[in-house]
């Protein structure tokens, strides 16, 4: 009787253990270790050596380079999220009707999600080359796309937007097929034109998936790394030194884990606040 009670009391926890173990090992432990490291300066082996308290943070907040990283990241996220969502939405709407060859088109639009960001960046590096690149040849220009601070960030951002658009296409396609067709029929009977149908039916119908896509896209854009590493290495100057790349540089190139950890914590805060704001907005704009 008593044993049965105990096992009954314990059994739910036993079921949870595997999942919790994975979380603790790969999420909570690194999380706490990162916060711990952000309070130290590390030696060349990456070991915490000197306790500096908030020193890494105050260093960051007095460094122009860090604010530049934040600023550049903000612009990057803005471009990537808006362009990739727009691309995904347009392509999904275009493919939402049946016509011959639709499979070819929908495959083409979804394909970017199957391309690794680094390999795409390598291809773009050749295409964007000022002398031998195809883009300058087609446009008849001599622009040095990735070495000019005016264009470098836009190039990297557009590449990322294109890469992300594939998965957005998929989300939006799924969202569109969830909207009941009879709604459109009834709207037609009521005399609604296609613009009205789009703004009054399609967009509100898509809003739950739109919200999800927005959140995921923002987080994904903050984490963009491969493109920057391959295409620009954060340059020219520091014009594409996105925060994740700056973290990578500090951690694995300069072996300053303390400063890198502090940047990670700040990035965590920024994304956390952003995400909370979005969940707050969700209540107003999303119709389930």
């Amino acid at each position, binding site marked *: 009787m008593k044993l049965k009670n105990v096992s009954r009391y314990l059994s739910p926890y036993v079921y949870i253990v595997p999942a919790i173990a994975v979380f603790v090992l790969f*999420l909570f432990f690194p999380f706490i270790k990162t916060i711990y490291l952000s309070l130290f300066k590390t030696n060349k082996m990456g070991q915490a050596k000197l306790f500096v308290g908030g020193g890494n943070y105050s260093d960051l907040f007095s460094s122009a380079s860090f604010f530049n990283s934040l600023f550049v990241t903000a612009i990057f996220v803005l471009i990537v999220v808006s362009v990739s969502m727009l691309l995904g939405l347009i392509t999904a709407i275009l493919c939402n009707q049946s016509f011959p060859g639709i499979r070819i088109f929908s495959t083409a639009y979804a394909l970017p999600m199957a391309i690794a960001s680094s390999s795409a960046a390598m291809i773009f590096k050749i295409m964007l080359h000022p002398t031998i690149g195809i883009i300058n040849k087609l446009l008849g220009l001599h622009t040095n796309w990735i070495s000019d601070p005016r264009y470098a960030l836009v190039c990297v951002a557009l590449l990322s937007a294109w890469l992300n658009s594939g998965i957005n296409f998929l989300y939006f396609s799924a969202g569109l097929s969830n909207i009941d067709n009879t709604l459109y029929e009834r709207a037609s009977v009521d005399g609604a034109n296609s613009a009205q149908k789009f703004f009054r039916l399609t967009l509100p119908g898509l809003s739950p998936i739109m919200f999800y896509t927005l959140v995921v896209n923002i987080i994904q854009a903050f984490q963009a790394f491969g493109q920057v590493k391959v295409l620009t290495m954060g340059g020219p100057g520091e014009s594409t030194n996105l925060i994740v790349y700056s973290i990578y540089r500090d951690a694995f190139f300069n072996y300053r884990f303390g400063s890198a*950890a502090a940047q990670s914590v700040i990035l965590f805060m920024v994304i956390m606040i952003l995400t909370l704001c979005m969940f707050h907005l*969700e209540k107003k704009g999303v119709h389930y």
Partner: protein
Amino acid sequence: MKKKALSFLMAAIMVAGMLSGCSTQTGSENITESQTKEDITTSAAPVASTTITFWHSMGGVNGEAINALVEKFNKENTSGITVEAQYQGSYDDAINKLKSAQIGNMGADLVQIYDIGTRFMIDSGWVIPMQKLIDEDKWDINQVEPNIAAYYTVGGTLYSMPFNSSTPILYYNKDMFKKAGITKVPDSLPGIDRIGDDLLKKGGAGEVISLGIYGWFFEQFTCKQQAHYADSGNGREAAATAVDFDKNGAGVKTLTAWKTLSDKGYAPNVGRGGDAGLADFSAGKSAITLGSTASLKQILNDVNGKFEVGTAYFPKVSDDDKGGVSIGGGSLWALNNNDVNKQSATWEFIKFLVSPESQAYWNSQTGYFPITTAAHQEPVFKDNISKFPQFQTAIDQLHDSTPQSAGALLSIFPEARQTVETEIENMINNKGTPEAAVTKMGESINKSITDYNLLNK
């Protein structure tokens, strides 16, 4: 209320994933550090069959050549040594991987590390000084070119075996020079400035010089002025405590000459890195480019006879500079894995790699120097130099240099090089002054050096 809590939780989990990437590398204690102090004995007895791991950073044509050498060694050695060559990406990638691997104590037996990783490797305590292996085997060190060995010799000890050494040289388009009626190849940056208009107007060049923004060039320009990059005898007498190029004026002089070329439109911004300028040159757009001797083969392949390629010494910063160039490239570091047998096997493999025959082959395939003078007698080398007389420039330039131009050693050199490149880029793109750029370089690098010295006593 419940929903609020839920949404908070969701948000937290979604973003917590971000943090997990950064701190996994730092766990275990470093065991290897103390081990180099232990006595290392190389057995004179024949090596038992074993497998050693060799990390290298040679891709493309050079990678094929290194694989051919490794295969040859595996086939021909009689001790049953198998060398496993692993390509580890760029030099930067390789040294960073090594750092991570050594933390977990699972590195390679032999690694190829770039010139600027030298100070870090010496300080790391992971390595068996090459001198030790040489002395124990009574190998004749005079086989190695003295100007090359000088770079890797600190306090009279040769720490690593030079393997792929190169110097920067100037490549020029002979056809354009002929058309512009220029007979004397410029030997300084002002010299390039003086013939710029002729090359553009008469020679038909699209740009005068495609000058990649590369920290190595900045270092070489400092050598050319016989100035030191860092204090403490260029970081060779002791670990450097600060850079010197901001105080001795060499940095400002280099950047002033660089900026003059850039402002006149002679040296447009072609991007960052050692090979950033090569494509413009090979495509027949620029009349001049600077590059490593190791790029010679690649350039000749790419040009493919479209025009005649000439080579000359790396340019001076002002006409009356008297310094030489220092070498760059990579060297071989034997790691101490406390396995005497593997250590002997590694040494056998190193001896094979630097043998005159291997070096002559290596030189003919890549354009790196043969690091042993005896390789000059090999038929492969003689054939190669008669086929590509351009390479003679590189040999002459190296012999004209002196061990005093060996270049600086700096523990945080990879970072310093990046800083230099960033500031040059800023100066060119934002029309900054050379003085401001050099000041910023100095501040940023000195701060890193101070931090490094403080934390790694």
